[in-house]
């Protein structure tokens, strides 16, 4: 349901001179699936929240560009 990223596979012609891009990914942060934020979501501690970029655990989205190795964040 709430995946940090989704991808699709564009069509590419065999006669395409350039190297085809086989898969394209796009970021889908959790807030897309949340709608109106319910109360009392689990929270980070202040220090962690500062690093994570959000106070609520379900909203945490470590954006990794598909090109850099998907570093395993918190």
């Amino acid at each position: 349901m709430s995946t940090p990223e989704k991808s699709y596979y564009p069509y590419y012609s065999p006669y395409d001179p350039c190297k085809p891009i086989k898969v394209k990914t796009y970021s889908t942060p959790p807030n897309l699936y949340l709608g109106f934020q319910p109360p009392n979501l689990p929270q980070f501690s202040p220090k962690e929240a500062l690093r994570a970029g959000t106070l609520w655990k379900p909203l945490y989205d470590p954006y990794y560009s598909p090109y850099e190795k998907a570093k395993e964040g918190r």
Partner: protein
Amino acid sequence: MKQLPQDYYELLENLQAVDFVLVELTLYLDTHNDDTDAINQFNYYVKERKKIRKDIESKYGPLMQYGNSYSGNPWNWDDAPWPWQV
């Protein structure tokens, strides 16, 4: 010029973390006006921030001015280090 003790950075980081929590809670409470738990948490962190600010200002001088902080004697809010020099 004298170097700042490590304690200064820790206190500033605590202040920054509490500030971030207050920003998040403010934005959350803008749309959830009657969430009493969040309001209680917000007030707790406001008190917390006041404590940290008083602690920092007692040790290292005023953080802000134009009436936001008490001043030392002599006037010292414009002494080094400025926020970008820290």
